[in-house]
């Protein structure tokens, strides 16, 4: 029982990490069709932001709370620069964005190595996040609970933004039909930039969050990028609710597989499940119906 609860929570917690990593991607890849391989490196930038903030503010609790908006800004600005300098020249050419952003990812990794050194750095968790609470005998780590909460807050914020603000309405209009949106007076340039800013900023927040559970190193991004793409693709491109369901299902499935087999085999089984699922339903859990002709 104790173990069952522990494992259930492990699955939810893994799902929340996947969701955080994939949320921004579902905006930039899903809504804009840009394959951003540097998304993981934006996470890394967020993680190093947490490190820098912690050096400036030694109190780990305050620095974590400051790091979250700071990580959002750093990730967002990096995304904005990438969009303005490179990506806006290659919309409608997803394969080119894949190669270009992979190159950018390598540059960012090397930059992190040059600035912070190759060894991983330590970001301390605040005292109020150390330890765990007991749920029916199973230890629930507080850091995990915090990340779960953070991912839900980010999700709520994003949904609110897309559904309930004029900005969100414009973004959705551009996704549904770019030409019609433009002829209706929506600035697609501005909408693209903002979408990319928010998507990349979410990666920055994800980066801050994962410093609580893993290492902060120049390679941090490479650990998450593939999983993040898997979530977005399995969920259905352009679908936030699909990404949510996919992230939590994959998280729970992986912890079940991992528990009943081993970590490596569990990973293989997850990939098999995704491949089979996409064979049966290539458009993902949800698919976007658009009125555009192309």
């Amino acid at each position: 029982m104790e173990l069952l609860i522990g494992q259930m929570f492990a699955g939810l917690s893994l799902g929340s990490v996947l969701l955080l990593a994939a949320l921004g991607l579902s905006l930039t890849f899903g809504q804009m069709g840009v394959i951003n391989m540097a998304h993981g490196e934006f996470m890394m930038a967020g993680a190093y932001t947490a490190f820098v903030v912690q050096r400036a503010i030694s109190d780990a609790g305050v620095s974590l709370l400051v790091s979250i908006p700071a990580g959002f800004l750093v990730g967002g600005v990096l995304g904005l620069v990438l969009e303005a300098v490179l990506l806006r020249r290659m919309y409608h050419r997803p394969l080119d964005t894949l190669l270009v952003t992979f190159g950018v990812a390598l540059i960012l990794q090397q930059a992190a190595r040059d600035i912070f050194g190759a060894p991983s750095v330590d970001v301390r968790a605040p005292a109020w996040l150390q330890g765990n609470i007991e749920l029916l005998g199973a230890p629930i780590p507080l850091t995990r609970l915090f990340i779960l909460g953070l991912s839900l807050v980010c999700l709520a914020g994003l949904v609110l933004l897309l559904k309930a603000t004029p900005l969100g309405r414009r973004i959705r209009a551009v996704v549904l039909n770019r030409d019609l949106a433009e002829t209706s007076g929506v600035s697609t340039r501005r909408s693209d930039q903002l979408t990319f800013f928010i998507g990349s900023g979410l990666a920055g927040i994800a980066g801050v969050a994962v410093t609580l559970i893993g290492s902060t190193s120049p390679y941090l991004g490479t650990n998450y990028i593939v999983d993040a793409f898997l979530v977005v693709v399995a969920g259905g491109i352009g679908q936030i609710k699909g990404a949510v369901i996919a992230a939590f299902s994959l998280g729970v499935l992986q912890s079940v597989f991992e528990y009943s087999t081993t970590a490596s085999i569990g990973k293989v089984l997850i990939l098999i499940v995704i491949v089979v699922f996409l064979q049966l339903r290539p458009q993902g859990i949800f698919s976007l119906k658009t009125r555009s002709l192309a």
Partner: protein
Amino acid sequence: MRVSVTNRAFLPLAAAAMATVLAGCGSQIADPASAGSTASSGTSCVDTSGSSVKVGFINSLSGTMAISESTVFDSLTLAAEEINASGGVLGKKLEVISEDGASEPTKFAERAGKLIQQDCTAAVFGGWTSSSRKAMLPVFEANDALLFYPVQYEGLESSKNIFYTGATTNQQIIPALDYLAEQGTKSLFLVGSDYVFPRTANKIIQAYAEAKGIEVLGEEYAPLGSTEFSTIVNKVRDSKADAVFNTLNGDSNVAFFRQYKSVGLTADTMPVVSVSIAEEEVPGVGLDNVQGQLTAWDYYQTLDTPANKKFVAAFKAKFGSERVTSDPMEAAYTSLYLWKAMVEKAGSFEVDKVQAAADGVSFEAPEGMVTVNGENNHITKTPRIGKINADGLIDTVWSSPEAVEPDPFLATYDWAKDLAK
């Protein structure tokens, strides 16, 4: 349609993306055959006529392994400078030629070939991962050249062209098990990264445990670089083992120890013995997370020997007081001095004469006296169990009473008979 990538189109794309990501992580696969084929007939071109002699350093100064291997490069540099300051080897100054292995075994093989054939170095020092060593081995054998390899490894290897100055299994893993048994450990849980060293090490641990009546309650592997340990930590906690034997590599240690601690496991309730966390890795893993945990090595910076005090002082003077020294760094430092002693005993830089002179050559290393075993080209070492202290350094809590003879094939252990096959 605005969203022009469909899922069907994305699948091959994702595969390509993953392949690129994997390639970016550094290839682990080497083709020794192609590396060896570049070798020439083996006539040495080493030039000993001048006032200097060339030696090669080969370390990953870029890529994932740079974090570890650059520290080995630093201590090799220190040893070369010290040797030059005290008159060189056979009256000749060392001229160091450094090559970057770039964390890729194929690159190691190619660069090693260059150091031997084009640069005509008298000996080469470096390498870290077993895959890099295994990629270089045929190159050194085909050219009949010398490699000094400074890192603890999984044993079961012996080449007349390689001198192994790091620990083999009976100088690190077996003493750690002896220590645990001595402490009354009745059950173990094994956690490792999924590649050759942890799997070989755990085979040895399983055999040992069976012979000594220790119960192994679980054996779990995480993919290299994995940061998700919830499930493994839950399994460890549920097993209620007396201790954990950790052969995780690199950054996975950070995630493992953080998540280990966050479910309430500590060094007091369930100690973890690690074989890949040295002084250099402690800050990255986070002192909070590993303080009080155990390590198994042959050298710690805190060792109270005159040779070590001199080594640490010289290293800090050259590279900065915040730097630390670790086991592989000490083994690298020692390897250059051992080569010097072999050359001086042989009275020649020629490979066959150095090989003939190697047996019994000894050096007062920072870890204590080490002696070369000419039969398997390993060296005697003094195993030590350490405990990570509040400063992030490691205190010795147990030390082998004397230096242990190297036994890479575990031929002298009855319970290990089936392993070497």
